[in-house]
Each structure stands twice: as C-alpha cells, then as structure tokens.
C-alpha cells in the first residue's frame, strides 16, 4: 500500500499539470480530486479509469483481480476498436469468493495467470488490483513478479483499486504502470525521424483510423498509440519516438511528461476534433518532428495536405450550414471535448447555450473563454433535473452528452447525440467532423420529433381551453426544423 500511496502522491505532484502547481503544499497533499459526495456522486472509480486507459492494448490479457462486480458487471462495454487481436475483448477475472477474502486471493491470482498463459499465450498479462483484494492485503506486485519470472513473460501489475479515487486518477495510475513496467523494455527494429507517439487516444469507434491515413500520407509513422489499437510490443518500444502528441486533455499527462524527461521526447497537447484543431495538431506534429531532425519540407507537405483536407471538409459541410444555423446546443461533457467540440460546432454556425466544465482543467476553461467569449455559459455541475428543464423549456434544441444522461433529453422529447466513450460513430479528423455534423443534422431533423411532440388527440382536446396565448409566447417551443408544433410541449408542461 505504501508504494501505491507514494505513487498517488507522485501523480498529484505532476509538474506538467498546472492545476497542481497552483495549489499550496497542503492542498496538494489532499490530491487532485475533491472528496466524493456520498449520495451525490456519479462516475467511475480509479480501477475503471485504469482499465479504460489500458484495455485498448489489444493483444494483452487484461485480468481483473477482485470479486465478480468489477469485471462481471462491466466487461464488453466499450467500443475501442482493434485492427488485429481481439484478446482484449475477453473478460478475465479471478472472481474471488468468501474463502479468498478470508485466506487471501494471491494463490488464485497466480493460478489465474498460469491458466491464461497456458490457454491464450498473450505477449503480456495486465493484472488490475481492485478494492477487496487491496483491503485484505493481496500484494499483486509480488505475485506479478513471481509469475513473470516463472512464465517468462511480462505480467504487469496495475495498482489502482477503485476506492483510491476517481476515474481520472486511475488513468494516470495506469500510465504509471506503463512507465514502470512496459515503456522502454524493448527496442524497435528500426526508427525513422518521422516516428511519433500518440498518447491518450483510445481508438473509440475507430477514431484513430480517421487520422492515421493522413499521417501515413505524410510519411509519419505512429510508433505507438497509447493505447488505442496498440499491441504490447509497440508500447514497449515507444521510448524511441521523436515526438509525441497528447490527446484527451490530462488523462495521461504523466506519461507524456515523464517520457519527455526520461527519453527526451517533446510533446504537445492537441485535439483531433474540429477542423481547425485537427490542422493545428498536424502542424504541431510536423513542427516537432522537424525540430528533432525530420526534413523541413515536411512542413510544406503538411500545409498542402491541410489545405486540401480543409477545403474538402468545408465543401462537405456547406449543405448543413443553412439547416443548422442558429440551432442551440447544450453540451454536457468534460475535459478536452468541452472546448474542442465547441469550436467544431461553431464552425458550422451552431450556437452553444452551455458547456459543462465539471471535469475540465483550468486550461480547458481558458480555451472555452477564448472560443466562446468571456460570457461563455460554463456549467460546473448540472443536475439532470436542470438539464431536463433547459431542454423541455426549449432553451436548447439538442443535447450532446454521454450515454448515461441521454434519457434526460429523450424523455423531454428532445434530440440527443452521443459524444462520449460508448458512442458508435467516429468523430475525429476532417472526415469525423463532417460525420459529427451529419449525425447532428440527422438527430435534429428526424421526423419523429414532430410525432412524439404531438399530444394524444384526446389530451389536446382536453387541454385546448387551457392553452393560453400568453404561455405559448413565453415559451417559444423547440424549433425543430420542419416541426410546426411550436410551443406544444411547453404548453402541456405548463398545464400539466
């Protein structure tokens, strides 16, 4: 436990995170996250975060050491795509029982690793610690070391039991596991001055593949993506990259910064969402590579590609401009998406009525102000009831959020689109941006809105004498494109 708590302290002291640096020593000791509210908390735990960050390494066996809850309730629920191995989609867990809780689960863990090696022969096994074995004192580091020696293959402990903190902390602890046990343990067959790492991109819905063709065209090689569509050996040799791009805000800033410190790999933070941000990211990758020895002509080729792709994307977006102009979006997300998606949406003339900043860093917030102006409506912590009210009062035409809050919108009979991890559509790069706007247009203009907002005929008859012009004017209803039923939803709610 002492190594874990020192690791957590280390993560909290991350010098690359300016949020940490702005705190006093005492505050910093408390850690990144405020104490969770019993009865008022939502979101994942540290184990969840660690698994999210590492599971996209596709050829590894991900073994969860704990009771059935941690894996049995959650496996097979994320859409990180693989171009090769599918082993990462297999759920492995020690499923510890009462006896293990009393006598310790280390033996079961060791045997589990052996069974996995025998049956599946993966290049490595990742072992995730969870709360119960952490409480009873199972030392997964020792078991992993013993198993690693015995079976002659890497067995990597990921020490991030749920109760040490939130998902974001788990992301970082996962990064620590990679830094300590994986990165730098293998040499690539060859290197080029055009080798980069992408850090914090999980290839959800295949988004990495919307970007990779562009890099391929420029002759830039992704030595390792940590961890989207990654193979174990790619991560192991990632220390030989010339530059790195850090995606997804601060989830893995410790990996980016420590790789810079240890191996001299410079990195920048960028986004693949939105046309402008995508171009900036390509430029920055090219700039860093040239700085580290790539030919200066890379810059010209990059600009040419950007010009071509931007023109293509703008042309593809043109038809949507008129259909979407003035439509109001409520954005409930966090981190990098709180600003990169804003920029993307504004590019086609959508109005952002609010963006949540619950999980955003100070830097993220600065960017939002930059993009949306000083009066940007940043929402610290919006309750579902408030979201529902905003939508049912038609102060927004569509909500963009993660899957868990979708029903807040749908029950208010308002369009919703998934922009979080469980989504099925890929929104990265130039093609992804066009796809995002296309999906948004489909959601907003689906003919169902008109039908579901029409009250049952008997209800309309009953309500007709109550419907006052006054109410209808105060609540201009959702202007859902072709929908002629202005104010009906609002009226009904007012009279209900």
């Amino acid at each position, binding site marked *: 436990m002492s190594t874990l708590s020192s690791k957590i302290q280390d993560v909290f002291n991350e010098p690359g995170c300016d949020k940490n640096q702005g705190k006093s020593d005492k505050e910093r000791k408390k850690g990144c996250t405020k104490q969770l509210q*019993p*009865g008022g908390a939502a979101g994942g735990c540290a184990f969840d975060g660690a698994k999210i960050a590492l599971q996209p390494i596709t050829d590894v066996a991900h073994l969860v050491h704990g009771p059935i809850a941690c894996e*049995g309730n*959650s496996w097979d629920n994320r859409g990180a795509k693989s171009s090769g191995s599918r082993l990462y989609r297999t*759920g492995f867990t020690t499923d510890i029982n009462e006896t293990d809780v009393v006598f310790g689960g280390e033996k079961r863990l060791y045997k*589990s690793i052996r069974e996995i090696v025998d049956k599946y022969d993966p290049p490595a096994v990742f072992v995730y610690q969870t709360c119960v074995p952490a409480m009873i004192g199972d030392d997964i580091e020792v078991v992993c070391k013993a198993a690693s020696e015995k079976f002659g293959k890497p067995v990597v402990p990921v020490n991030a039991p749920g*109760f040490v903190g939130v998902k974001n902390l788990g992301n970082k602890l996962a990064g620590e596991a990679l830094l300590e046990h994986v990165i730098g343990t293998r040499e690539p067959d060859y290197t080029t001055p055009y080798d980069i790492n992408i850090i914090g991109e999980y290839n959800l819905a295949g988004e990495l593949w919307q970007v990779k063709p562009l890099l391929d065209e420029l002759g830039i090689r992704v030595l390792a993506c940590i961890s989207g569509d990654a193979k174990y050996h790619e991560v192991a040799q990632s220390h030989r990259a010339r530059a790195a791009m850090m995606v997804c805000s601060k989830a893995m800033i410790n990996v980016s910064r420590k790789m810079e410190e240890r191996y001299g790999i410079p990195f920048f933070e960028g986004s693949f969402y939105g046309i402008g941000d995508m171009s900036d990211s390509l430029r920055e990758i090219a700039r860093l590579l040239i700085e580290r020895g790539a030919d200066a002509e890379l810059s010209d080729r990059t600009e040419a590609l950007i010009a071509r792709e931007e023109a293509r994307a703008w042309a593809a977006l043109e038809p949507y401009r008129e259909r979407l102009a003035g439509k109001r979006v409520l954005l409930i997300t966090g981190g990098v998406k709180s600003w990169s998606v804003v920029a993307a949406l504004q590019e086609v003339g959508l109005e952002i009525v609010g963006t949540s900043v619950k999980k955003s860093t100070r830097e993220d917030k600065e960017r939002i102000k930059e993009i949306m102006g000083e009066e940007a409506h940043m929402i610290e912590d919006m309750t*579902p009831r408030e979201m529902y009210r905003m939508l049912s009062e038609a102060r927004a035409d569509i909500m963009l959020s993660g899957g868990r809050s979708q029903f807040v919108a749908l029950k208010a009979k308002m369009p919703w689109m998934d922009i979080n991890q*469980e989504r099925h559509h890929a929104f990265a790069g130039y093609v992804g941006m066009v796809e995002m706007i296309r999906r948004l247009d489909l959601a907003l203009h689906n003919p169902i809105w008109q039908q579901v907002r029409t009250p049952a005929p008997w209800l309309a008859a009953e309500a007709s004498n109550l419907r006052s012009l006054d109410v209808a004017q105060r609540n201009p209803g959702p202007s859902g494109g072709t929908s002629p039923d202005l104010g009906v939803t609002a009226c009904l709610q007012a009279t209900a």
Partner: protein
Amino acid sequence: MASVVKSKKACTVNPLKMSQPVGGALAFMGVRGSMPLLHGSQGCTSFGLVLFVRHFRESIPLQTTAMSEVATVLGGYENVEQAVLNIAQRTQPSLIGICSTGVTETKGDDVEGFITLIRERHPELAHIGLVYASTPDFKGAFQDGWAAAVTRMVETLVEVPTGPPRRGQVNLLPGCHLTPGDIEELREIIEAFGLAPVILPDLSDSLDGHIPDDFTPTTLGGTTLADIAGMGRSELTLAVGEQMRPAAAALGAKTGVPYVLFERLTGLVANDAFLMRLSELSGRPVPAKYRRQRSQLEDAMLDGHFFFGGCKVALGAEPDLLYAVGSFLAEMGCQIAAAVTTTESPLLERLPCDEVLIGDLEDLEQRAGDCDLLITHAHGRQLAERLQLPFFRLGLPMFDRLGAAHQLTVGYRGTRGLVFDIGNLLLAHGHEPGPDDWRLAHEPAAATLAAD
C-alpha cells in the same frame, strides 16, 4: 436429473455472472419514489448504472456512498449517513434501498446498526423507508441479490395485518428473470380473474419505458410503500421463481398469508397450473381470452416442434431463467446439451439434462461446439460469432438489442412468442445438404482428391 458441477478454474473467463448488489439495486427500482444506494466505492455504482442503462435504455436512479480508501478502513457510518441525508434532500425519495458491496462486507460494516443510529439522530427522515440488504460481491450472483432485497423489503416494509384479508387482493413476487413486459403480462392475467395484485417489485411500472410528465430523479413508478405495507391483507401470495421462496416465506411468517410458488411460467403445462390456481382462488372460470391463447400456443407448438425436435441447445443463464427456458425447450423436444449457470439453486439438479455447470461463458463455449443453438445474454455474441451458432439473446444484460424490457417468456402468449422467435432462428439457419455430407469417414473427400 442433472448433476451440478462447479468450475474448478482459478480464472473466470468471459463472465456469465453479475454481482449481488446490482441485483439488489434492480429490485429496489420496482418501488415508487425509490433510490437504490450501493454502500461501496464509486465504481460499484458506476458499473451498475452503465449496465442497466445499456440494458433498459432508461435513466437509472442509483447512488453511492462513495467510500474512499480511508473511509473503508475506518468504517462507513458517516458515508451512509451523509448519503441518506443528501439523497433525502436532493431527490425526496419515499425509499432508500441500501445494498452492501464487497468492500463494505470485507470491512464488516454494521449497516443495520447504522440505520438505527440514523433513525435516532434524524427523526425528520421518519417518512422515508430505509431498507438494507446484505449483498457481498464475492458471494452468490445477481439473482441472489434480488432475492435478498425483496426479502428485506418484505421484512421491513410489510405491516402485520390488523383487519381481515381484502377479498380478491393477491401478492405477486416476481423473480429477477421476469422482464417488465413479463410482469405486465402476469398482472393482466391476474386481473382478468377479477383479482387485484400487489406486485413487489413492480418493474412493469418503473422500467417499461413510458414517458413521464416531468423529470423525476428517483424511480418513475413502481409499487407504493402503502401497497407494500398492506400486502399482509392479501388472500394469497403468488411467487414466481425458486429465488422468491425466502421472500414468500418471510411474508407468510410475518402476516400469515399463504403462498404458492410457481417455479416457472414458461410452457403450456406451467401456465395451465397457474391459471387453474387463479380460477380456484377467484371462483371464476378461465376467461375466454386465455382459452383462445392456450389453443394458439398449442398450434404454435405443433407447427414449431419440427424444428425444435433433436435440436442441441447450449444455454447460459441464471438458475431460474435457465430452469424456465431449459425445461420448456426440453418439452419442445430439444436436447439441453450444455447448461451453464451462475449460482446455486435447488432447481439445478431438476433440469432435464446431464450436467449443469456453475461457471462462465468460456465453459459454455467449450461445451457448445457441436450445438445447433446458443441461448444466453448479450455477452454471448462473441462466442456465437466464433462458433458460428445461431444466437438467441435472453436475460440481462441485453445491450445490443432494442426492447430488452419487453421480451416476453411467460404466459401462453409469451411462450408462443418464444416458439416463434427461436423457431424462426432455427429455420433461418437450416443446414443445406452438400454432396460430402454423408461421405464415410475413411473415404477421402472428392475435394481433397482433386486438390492432390
């Protein structure tokens, strides 16, 4: 008669099982104005939430005591108290249903004691029901958690009757293998006899997908606390699924209401017994509607038996669902060639097959190789793909299909639907014979000869 075997593997691969606390939480979701609360770290709740959202495609009320590492070591009283106060203030629930988790069970938190203390310290919360179910993650499975929560609700919320039974009032205790659609079907059947059922828990009112007039942070519907309190005045308790026996018995012990347990309501004979019992109780003949449905089911069975007969089925489900569907498939002429389940149950050895394994989907995959049909929850999709088996999704979670809440397996009508759905799947995957199908084993195949 089946022999019940436990997997000897150290490592569970592709779990079939889900944990007790989420089962308990789902039971609490069948009560009106309810907020289930998992006493554990935040992830315990978060995983449960995602699981149910993906399955039901509904907003799911579920809270956490957000136990940190330190709180876990020191004990969780303050977290439980804080959680109850916060929930009471934010969502004004009528019931907070608390389930323990692996974390708090390992520590040994005395939650019953916590509740007593909270009651003492906060008399202003007297109007809110507080029910605690012990549901450690490292023991049992989903259906055990459901059973525990229902039993505790009966013990805590049902009042000892002061008056005589209300004529025509019956209790219905459905197991967690029944969908909201199933429960709705049973309610209609019972009501058709002029009986008034009190259903605990009633997911048909809370997770059936209806659109409420306004936003509610707790459950959308479900049994009211007043109805639960009055369950002691029913004439009879109808329990569906072996898992509901403890709850039915507890209700009987507390109130004297006798119970009948129906191990399953899938299949012709099973439903005959159910309707007969309702007819006796109500003193009314079986309504014409159900006589007609029975006849339709008979016809469906006659039409379908050609495709079911001899079909080898691999079946993975929680005990009560396994028993209901497995028994019915056997009645249709299928052979249950592989049966895997999650937890102990007295029903397992009565399953019409040779062996029932308490194991995982890897075990099912190994046994399903020469089967004609795979039936399990949505996680079976990967193995169905690998084995190229026709795949019928059944149970929870079902995250890759619409309408999971309305899948029907009970009643004549529900059984008929099963015959059609599974039968059509078998029809669609019918084997086209080829010239080499009946070639003798020692004779080299024509294709091989040609290749040489």
